[in-house]
């Protein structure tokens, strides 16, 4: 007898591996990092590849701390979403090539990232920059959507988005092109 979720990964290591595999299948990039310093180094490397000089960041404590380190070790200019009024922030986010945010959860079976913006109040950095970098605590990876819906605090989940890889379209002759209206590149920094 078949069972829904029977392909669910069991251990922590398998979860991380499944997440990595599915993220890559969805055209995302997976970079495991051990320390904050390593993460900062990766961000600086990606920034040099992308050619961006500003980094828009969301307001979570881990992101702010990592942002400060990146600012210290590179010439990247930091734009904190809480620093600017909405109108200026909108333009800054739209002009920025790079953004750094934190995901609340990862979902292994579809390589998805979960961003509840009920509390953070922001989703522009997640959608307007060309390259989205995401800090994901490895212990926050859940096996599948069924498990995720059970784990979710439903009061905080009213405004939320699940992201699986870059923005995409195949509306022209079914040819897949990344970066339709949102980021063309999604890099997960798994801590």
């Amino acid at each position, binding site marked *: 007898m078949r069972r829904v979720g029977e392909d669910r990964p069991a251990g922590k290591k398998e979860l991380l591996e499944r997440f990595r595999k599915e993220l890559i299948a969805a055209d995302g990039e997976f970079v495991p990092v051990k320390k904050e310093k390593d993460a900062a180094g990766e961000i600086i490397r990606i920034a040099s590849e992308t050619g961006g000089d500003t980094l828009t960041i969301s307001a979570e404590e881990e992101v702010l701390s990592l942002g400060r380190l990146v600012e210290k070790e590179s010439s990247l200019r930091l734009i904190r979403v809480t620093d600017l009024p*909405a109108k200026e922030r909108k333009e800054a986010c*739209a002009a920025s090539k790079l953004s750094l945010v934190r995901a609340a959860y990862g979902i292994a079976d579809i390589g998805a990232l979960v961003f509840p913006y009920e509390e953070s109040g922001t989703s522009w950095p997640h959608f307007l920059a060309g390259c989205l970098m995401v800090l994901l605590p490895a212990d926050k990876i859940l096996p599948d959507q069924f498990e995720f819906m059970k784990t*979710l605090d439903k009061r905080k*989940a009213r405004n939320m988005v*699940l992201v699986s890889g870059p923005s995409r379209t195949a509306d022209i002759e079914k040819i897949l092109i990344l970066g339709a209206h949102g980021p063309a590149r999604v890099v997960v920094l798994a801590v």
Partner: protein
Amino acid sequence: MSDAVTNHFVKADIMEVSPKYIKRYVKEALSDDLLRQAVLKATATAVTKRQERVDETPYWELLRQRARSYKKEIVDHLGWYLDSFARHCEEGGITVHWAADGEEARNIILDIARKNNVKKVVKSKSLTSEEIGLNTALLAEGIDAIETDLGEYIVQLQGKIPSHLTMPALHLSRQDIGRIFEKKLGVAYTDDPNELLGIARARLRQHFLSADMGITGVNFGLAEEGCLCLIENEANAHLSLSLPRVQVALMGLEKMIPGLEALPVFLKLLAPSATGQRSSSYVNFIGGPTRKLLGEGPEEVHLVLLDNGRSRIAKDPVLRETLHCMRCGACLNICPVYQQIGGHAYGWVYMGPIGSTLIPQYLGEDEGRYGPFLCSLCCACRDTCPVMIDLPSHLLDLRNRVVEAGKSMLLERLGIRGWALLARHPLLYRLATWFPGKAQQLLPRGAAFPAPGYTRERALGRFDVRGFRKRFIRERSVRQKNKNSQSSPSSGERNDNE
């Protein structure tokens, strides 16, 4: 963005279609080889990719059964779930409006736009908004309504409606799109898909940043949580709901599901069925206004719940099942009729097997009388449908209803009456089946009767000169003899000995 650039939407000669003219549309589609090539290529890719996803999901059939039972539960208790859904939406700050038909829905949305002094609307793909002709109403009010899904943007520039539920510009080649952009956007011609996307992205980004209102559809309304769920790949839906001051979501009553815990079942079925992906790139949850926090997202979220015949369909003991549809488009991709004629031939915003069932139900048995006949009854759609809708049975049922309502074609009615007359009079029947074979002998050797129209696309065989009845009796006796000789013990023994 200058007015010169946006004016093409106002002046667009929006395609006027009606299922009344299906015969003409089908004829045009069948003579368009490029269209058929484009449709065949796109649908074949979609079918292959879907099958890959199905093969890798060991519990696919179980998911289909679960989705079907969730949808059945909703449709069986539609009133109860609607009340619960609307109450929970309002608790979260969503303003709920009830629209009995398309006109009421258009008026509600125009009223919201007037109150908020809206000049520009960005729209993410919504078939329900196509169903009520929303763009035309907004344009008539002097509001720029810009489609932001790439495929929808292309067909809007072309002045047409989508030709597929999930791939709106499937009927166009990249060269067609290059020419449309050149003509409507005033850019240099290119047929490079990356460059074409770059042009659209740059134009639409400016519209996102300056729009006053976003209009979206809804894939799933979560009754228990009072949340709207919106699935997409391009990020245009999220930008449409998070950048403008006002958001309007237009939702058909049937789009509800019980709640968050049922959602994964539908998510696991929808993306593979629609696009052959494991998961769509974005799953948005909208639970109310968010602008008070950091100034992002809408100040007002309005939900327009559209009936437009749905509650009537929910009362039909048989056809209510058609309300289970998720609009994934899988039945279109597998349908041999759709593969040949594409979407515009159906003459309305819903097409393919599901469209053929919805056209007469929404538009009536007069205007939609031809819809149920665009089907070969091969049943592939039933096997493909992620929520197990028995589409071929519903199409047969609708054919019966069209005939009973006296709306079938005159030639067909006359033909059936003629046959009924012959069937009641055996002598006349014999004559009628004997005569064509004899009359045919007057034609040049080997020639069949001329049948203008029919023989343009296919060959017509010759009648048997003995007449149908004699041939039938003879062949029946031969079959009977063969059967007797096979089943007789002596023949069995003889075979054994051999």
